[in-house]
């Protein structure tokens, strides 16, 4: 997938290092495994072979069918604005896989007594827990016009994904016209699962402001968009962090 993943684990006192080490190793193995199966840049990956028609979905590893099924759900929920089947060059579930793999890696870290963990796949973030009891993680959203600033800070429960035209490496394709398109500068989606949040963020970035209407009825998912004119729009319960009186020293 050609991306960088950082994993932060916040432990409670007294947790054995060997446990964390083992969990990090399995989290890493999950990410590597997902890359090996789904990379569209590796010519011999099952996904690449599927794209070329050399194998069928049934001949591919089981998680291919699982991911494609989830992609179909995401396509449905996004009103067709997220559509891996409408990508140039054939089916491409990359927009779902990165978040899905990060979410799976996160699950590998949850086995023991940690206060929280963050898996950050190049700005798309899956999390569990927080810094401690009553201290949720705070995640900034990059300001699309002036990345020197943060557009917002959220108190994260679960996952957040952000899509936008300012980001290199993400070419947003309008599945209806099958051409590059984005109708807002940036779209962020929070929710319980990063795979779906990522797919929905892509969908909203392409759909534009009307994309908020797709997210509002989805249980647990919220969205914030920043329009090209700088105006902001969000769903009713978008988890903005309360402003702090002063930064901690």
């Amino acid at each position: 997938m050609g991306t960088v993943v950082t994993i932060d684990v916040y432990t409670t006192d007294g947790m054995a290092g060997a446990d964390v080490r083992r969990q990090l190793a399995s989290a890493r193995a999950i990410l590597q495994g997902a890359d090996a199966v789904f990379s569209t840049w590796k010519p011999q990956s099952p996904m690449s072979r599927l794209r070329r028609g050399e194998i069928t979905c049934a001949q591919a590893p089981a998680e291919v069918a699982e991911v494609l099924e989830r992609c179909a759900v995401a396509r449905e929920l996004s009103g067709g604005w997220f559509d891996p089947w409408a990508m140039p060059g054939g089916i491409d579930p990359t927009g779902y896989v990165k978040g899905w793999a990060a979410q799976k890696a996160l699950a590998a870290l949850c086995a023991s007594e940690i206060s929280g963990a963050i898996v950050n796949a190049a700005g798309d973030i899956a999390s569990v827990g927080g810094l401690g009891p009553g201290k949720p993680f705070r995640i900034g959203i990059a300001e699309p016009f002036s990345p020197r600033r943060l557009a917002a800070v959220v108190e994260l429960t679960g996952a957040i994904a952000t899509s936008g035209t300012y980001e290199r490496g993400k070419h947003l394709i309008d599945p209806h016209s099958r051409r590059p398109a984005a109708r807002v500068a940036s779209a962020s989606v929070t929710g319980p699962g990063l795979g779906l949040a990522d797919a929905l963020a892509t969908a909203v970035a392409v759909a534009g402001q009307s994309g908020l209407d797709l997210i509002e009825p989805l249980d647990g998912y919220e969205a914030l968009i920043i329009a090209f004119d700088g105006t902001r729009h969000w769903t009713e319960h978008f988890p903005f962090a309360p402003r702090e009186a002063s930064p901690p020293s």
Partner: protein
Amino acid sequence: MKRAPIVIMGTVAGLVGTLTFHTTPAHLSLGTLPGTSASQPPTVPGSGGSSHGHSTSGSSSPPKQGSAKPQPGTTRTAVGPAVNYNFGVLSVKVTVSGTRITKVGIASINDGGMYRSQSIDQQAIPVLEQEAMQAQSANIQGVSGASYTSAGFAASLQAALHSLGLR
């Protein structure tokens, strides 16, 4: 509360994990994870702009573990390991006063000298430097919507901070 992390970086073709283990108060040395493939020479993609699945190298010089506790008011500087990013290799230098970051900058960068990578770097790097300062003052644990370049930047910065016994 400041937490002492362990930074683990290794090379994985197409995907790299920077694994940070925060714990209070003990330092734990985890070293390099088993199964990490050998380091590969830095690669520069043949064309800018695309998100190739290129390999990313980990720390050439792992940060020291168990550093002394930060002293208030003491100014110290550390350079993070050289980390691959989309267009080449960079390392980050950080200066702290006590436990506060006072300066973040690029210690070294090799982007292959291609026009496109250079122009992107010239735009992105001052932004990333500022972002690091901003992130600190906003007391956040991550940024959503960060770019590919920033991930390499963050990895090196994280290791540099760690070598100073911070975050």
